[in-house]
């Protein structure tokens, strides 16, 4: 029950959510919902692990994870952008496809040990008491990459020219279209970027944060949690970071409740009956639902909402626009 350990672990597992969530923020800001995050993460985790095994380099594996997630998302992009299929169903099919494909192609991988990315400590910053130990000590390099990603994504979306275009595409695509911006091309790019980030998130699990390939158990629903966090984050990378890290820490903290024999001076029921741990395992999922209730309520009060064109296929009008 050491707060430093819990927070430290929260940052590490939260990084997985962070990458997936920020990727999803980009494709949702462009107006395309992709529920296939879980499938893309699994494909990424499997491809990353497999390539790391065969090349002997965890970093090459990480790149493979990035590409694999992107490749799978191309299918979603074609079907939702060009064929104007329902984005919900297409995303679900992507989850099935990713899950099935990764199990098939990942057959036999779990028995072999792939190289992993080792943790590093940032000099100087790692020496700061408490903060240093939580944020800058013995973390995967990808955790630090995640720190950089947060402001970069925020700045890109809200302060740059392509970010302005991105927001326009998701709010009112026809306005961008009549000014000569290719809505389709932009949407393709962001859906694939979202897929790449989900794949990378999968790679972060299998090669860095909790190394190994355990088939479906590798992600165990984290892709769905990331999708839920996007709503909680109200499509803002900074809120996504807060949500991801907080959620990572809570998840770890809850599991740690089972350890000690006494809690706050009382006998710990979880220690006495380990089966009560099943209730602890439910908590993260219940927490996500609560986070959604809070997020939806806030969004309604502040009248912030999803990008207006989210989930709506863009069809250039035939008689006028």
């Amino acid at each position, binding site marked *: 029950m050491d707060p430093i350990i819990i927070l430290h672990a929260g940052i590490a597992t939260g990084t997985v959510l962070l990458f997936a969530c920020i990727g999803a923020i980009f494709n949702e800001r462009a107006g395309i919902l992709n529920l296939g995050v879980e499938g893309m993460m699994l494909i990424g985790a499997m491809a990353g692990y497999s390539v790391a095994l065969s090349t002997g380099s965890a970093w090459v594996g990480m790149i493979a994870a990035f590409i694999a997630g992107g490749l799978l998302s191309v299918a979603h992009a074609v079907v939702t952008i060009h064929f104007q299929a329902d984005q919900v169903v297409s995303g679900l099919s992507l989850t099935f496809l990713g899950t099935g494909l990764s199990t098939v192609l990942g057959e036999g991988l779990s028995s072999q040990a792939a190289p992993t990315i080792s943790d590093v400590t940032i000099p100087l910053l790692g020496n700061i008491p408490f903060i240093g130990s939580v944020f800058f000590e013995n973390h995967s390099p990808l955790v630090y990459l995640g720190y950089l990603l947060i402001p970069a994504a925020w700045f890109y979306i809200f302060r740059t020219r392509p970010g302005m275009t991105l927001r326009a595409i998701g709010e009112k695509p026809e306005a961008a279209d009549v*000014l000569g911006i290719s809505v389709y091309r932009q949407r393709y790019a962001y859906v694939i970027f979202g897929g790449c980030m989900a794949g990378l998130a999968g790679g972060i699990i299998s090669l860095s944060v909790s190394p190994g390939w355990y088939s479906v158990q590798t992600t165990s629903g984290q892709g769905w949690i990331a999708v839920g966090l996007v709503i909680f984050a109200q499509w803002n990378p900074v809120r996504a970071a807060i949500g991801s890290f907080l959620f990572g820490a809570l998840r770890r903290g809850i599991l740690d409740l089972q350890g000690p024999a006494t809690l706050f001076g009382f006998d710990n029921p979880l220690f006495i009956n380990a089966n009560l741990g099943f209730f602890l395992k439910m908590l993260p999922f219940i927490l996500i639902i609560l986070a959604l209730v809070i997020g939806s309520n806030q969004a309604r009060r502040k009248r912030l909402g999803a990008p207006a064109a989210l989930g709506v296929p863009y069809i250039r009008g035939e008689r006028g626009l």
Partner: protein
Amino acid sequence: MEEKEALAVEMRNITIKFPGVLANDNVNLTLKKGEIHALLGENGAGKSTLMNCLAGINRPNAGEIWVDGQLQSFSSPKDAIKSGIGMVHQHFMLVPTQTVTENILLGLDNVGFFMNMRKYEQEIRELADQYSLHVDPEAYIWQLSVGEQQRVEILKMLYRGANILIMDEPTAVLAPQEIEGLMDTLRAMTERGKSIIFISHKLNEVKSIADRVTVLRKGKLTAEGLPMDDMDRKKLAELMVGRTVLFTVFKEENEPGDVVLDVQGVSALNKRGVPALRELSLQVRAGEILGIAGVSGNGQSELAEVITGLRECTGSITVNGEQMANAHPLKAIERGVAHIPEDRNKVGSSPNLSITENTIIKDYKEDPIGEGWQINFLKAAERASGLKDKYDILAPNVETMARKLSGGNLQKVILAREITTQPKLMIAVQPTRGLDIGAIESIQNLLLEQRKNGTAILLISEELDELVSLSDRLSVIHEGKIMGTIEDVENANIEEIGLMMTGEKVS
């Protein structure tokens, strides 16, 4: 070649096909430098299609486009913008959650990756001053009035250096005084060498502003670049519709009965949470049409919604003495309130349901359509067939899906459904918007017939002509308040109505 140099645009033999429709058939259009050229035609005549083609949004199936003496082939709106063509669309192409400046910069290649907003805001302010198109560059679009949004659209094109401006039905959303302002702006622009194509279906304004006119009817040319001096309203109308048009609807004398709708001190918020109705009061009696005039976005939609139970409000709304404020929409339906909603596609009908199903959406529980827990689809189809014949709805059969109907036919389905309930009160919002003259006439006659039958009608419209010809009394709405009511509509002073529409109290 000599002649061509004086031409800003020449479109030759343009043909545009859509699946099942020939939108433009061998159409020509020439625009001289510095002129205002009207493109006249009914709704659905193919004006916007032709102009979308000039703006690079659609590609013609055949024909040539010459701009400033050069043959052009636009593959994207960007190409059209590069050759100096800018289009202001009828439905504004603005991103509501972004600022004026952001909207103007959208899609420009020469804007840096990191945007120096201060610099651009200054530039836009200066450009706006030049043409006296006053608007705050830092404001968000959703905060602006419709008139201001139009200015942003014009600025967007001027900022891109457009020399040829296409204005698609620009006056549809403006008050008479705002229209004057727009006309002044357009004239100021031609003085600076810009050329303007002015799309409209309103004869009066075309007559007053344009130098020449091109007329389309059902995708075909009926007049090509005729000088306006030789034209009069009657001639234009004939070119546009293809037959002599009566400009007045025949309205019988009718003694109004008791008060049916009584709205007292009603306030409501719009969907963004901003006050849309402020202590509004009005009354409509049986057998009379109360017209509501106003610039769009001044609370008209919300007024219709609070009466029909679709929006929360404070204050009192009674129909035949019964309180209706904040009741479920079902109550209004049950008490005989018919509603022709503003958006016939998104609210008034269900696109993937058949004509039959669309005619029963309000009475599927009532005898004879509803039987216990079931619906008698046989009887529903029978009734729908009857309505299809009676209201002259053009469709292959009653199983046709609503989304496959034209605007006029869909509106007839909605009217047929609403009238079948024999309503005590009818709320009609923009019932004729976007329809061709034939459909407009039949819809207007149906409303008058209802009036004769003793239905109280609240007619909300942005077409002042329509309001004046149909209403018994006419109220003007501005920022959610009734500015004044004209009892003698036939001798109404349009100037006065216009002033009230822009918020001036007229006694």
